[in-house]
């Protein structure tokens, strides 16, 4: 496969933005500025970006409680994301959703979701809209390894298969569901094999390797756009940090984490190959790095300083009319 350097630069920018965003969130949580619970996406950047590079604003994604990476990859405004994570007015949900419910329908982002397994049926509904309205749009559901056990996921797979919907099930096997390893909680051990039991192409890929993810997603998205129905991809990429920021990670050998950082950095891997094989220059990447750092610095400061939602907001937007 050939890769357009502009596409690769864009992919890098998104992955770097996720990394920087999450590392900054981590520091902010530790500094005590962030309300609520925050689940970081570091280590999995290539999954969200490898997928979302193929998507338009009019395509939909359903996300998880670990949704920052999906938002950024799908093009949500970083400033508005931060306002939301800080539960401020003007945030993507006007401060009523927070990190675990962040959504942006203008960008086709159907919402993070704090109910594990609730999102796939919703994403299937978006795929149904695409099909019924006759667009060539698609819908993607991001699903954790732990979530893959929820019954709702099986139902979503079946519905997408039966109705031949333009749908991609993007499993993110990051090795753990909270404090339990996938080696224990996942009967059969292979999510992709399960999905193929519902009658759709399913493959497992190295989720640390942007190019592998990108290629698999290209096939799945094309197939969906052509009206040939759903597929599933299991991207394997361990998470770098705890389940939520603050998790002591007793279940994990610290050496596992060290090894991950050393050998399984999606950004490092990307840069090596993109510079060696596809002509990207290290300094243009460093420039991107700087831009992003600056952007996030600015936006975090703005978010922290921004006004809280007004008292009356408690009562608004429960209904359109009541």
């Amino acid at each position, binding site marked *: 496969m050939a890769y357009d350097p502009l596409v690769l630069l864009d992919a890098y920018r998104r992955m770097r933005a996720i990394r920087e965003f999450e590392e900054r969130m981590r520091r902010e949580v530790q500094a005590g500025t962030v309300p609520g619970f925050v689940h970081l996406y570091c280590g999995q950047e290539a999954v969200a970006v490898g997928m979302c590079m193929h998507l338009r604003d009019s395509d*939909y994604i*359903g996300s998880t409680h670990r949704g920052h990476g999906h938002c950024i990859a799908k093009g949500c405004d970083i400033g508005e994301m931060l306002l939301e994570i800080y539960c401020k007015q003007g*945030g*993507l*949900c*006007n*401060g*009523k*959703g927070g990190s675990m*419910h962040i*959504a*942006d*329908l203008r960008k086709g982002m*159907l*919402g993070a*979701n*704090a*109910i594990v397994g*609730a999102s*796939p*049926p*919703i*994403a*299937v*509904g*978006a795929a*149904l*809209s*695409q*099909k*019924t*309205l006759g667009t060539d749009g698609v*819908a993607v559901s991001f699903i954790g390894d732990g979530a893959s056990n929820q*019954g*709702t996921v099986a*139902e*979503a797979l*079946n*519905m997408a298969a*039966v*109705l031949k919907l333009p749908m991609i099930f993007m499993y993110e096997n990051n090795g753990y569901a909270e404090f339990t390893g996938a080696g224990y909680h996942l009967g059969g051990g292979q999510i992709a094999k399960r999905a193929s039991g519902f009658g759709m192409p399913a493959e497992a890929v190295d989720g640390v390797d942007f190019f592998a993810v990108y290629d698999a997603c290209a096939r799945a998205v094309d197939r969906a756009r052509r009206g040939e129905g759903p597929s599933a991809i299991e991207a394997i990429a361990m998470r770098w940090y705890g389940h939520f920021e603050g998790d002591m990670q007793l279940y994990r050998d610290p050496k596992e984490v060290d090894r991950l950082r050393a050998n399984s950095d999606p950004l490092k891997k990307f840069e090596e190959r993109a510079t060696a094989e596809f002509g990207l220059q290290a300094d243009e990447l460093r420039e991107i790095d700087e831009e992003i750092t600056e952007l996030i610095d600015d936006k975090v400061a703005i978010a922290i300083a921004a006004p809280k939602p007004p008292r009356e907001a408690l009562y*608004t*937007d*429960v*209904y*359109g*009319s*009541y």
Partner: protein
Amino acid sequence: MPVKSYREAITETLRQEMRRDKRVILMGEDIVGGMGGSSGVFEAAGGTFGVTAGLAAEFGRNRVIDTSITESAIVGAAGGAALTGLRPVAELMFIDFIGVCLDQILNQQAKFRYMFGGRCTVPVTIRTLMGAGYGAGPQHSASLHGMLASIAGIKVVTPSNAYDAKGLLATAIRDDDPVIFCEHKFLYGESCEVPDGEYLIPFGEANVTREGNQVTIVAFSRMVLLANKVADKLAKEGISVEVIDPRTASPLDKDSILESVEKTGRLVVIDEGGPYCGMASEIASLAACEAFESLKAPVQKITPPHTPVPASAELEQEWIPSLAKIERAVRATLSANL
């Protein structure tokens, strides 16, 4: 004016709304029927109770969609489709099945608008079926509109006659919030005058089905029929009973109820939902909190007992509120002298 059954009124409304707006789709189990069957018959069912009959022929299977037995996916996908440009009407075959898909209502559809900061609409309607009396036993006979009404962010509709069913369903489909539309098995065959043309009945506006000034009865769904009968019978004795059908369990037309209680000072609530934390308690509570000064007697609640619905037809009949029990309650509240 043409006379139509409750069932016919609902089918007609679905047809009119689908003609009116291409974004309206139907989905559910066997709402068409016959897919994958050996006969090749295009519509082998038209819904378990025939409510969606004939619609696939007009609108095609892309808009009248048979699904597998996966209620979480049905209700969940309807919610997702509502966020993304459709106005889905999903069928939950029996309201008893709410337990297998409640999260998609409780934490998803009901909360989308609020937790997304008002930046979406959620025009989904869930049609479902409530009510005992068919000998269908403990898992197919419940009336759970009160449980659903407890959820902020959804609307719960309980039409008691064909005319209301049509106007309320049209409102439900055009409404931008999630609506649970609770049909009652025993009303499908009941008929009344129903205009052919489109009309809307707003949510939160009660219907006073009998005017009176001595006792207020508030009743929901099928129980409105029983309340009317009792009111008519007592009218012959000169007892003047006002019957209020809220039509929507949520939003509730508090004002009509409070006004009536202010007038009569006596309240009987009749519901086929349970006696505990349901609509009957809610109405009684409303009176205790907001019409206390007018009340002249204890509120009377007539509901089934706090038990499942038994399979035995005789026990089931004993379970359902009866004319006799309602009449007794009305007389009791009248004779209460404080």
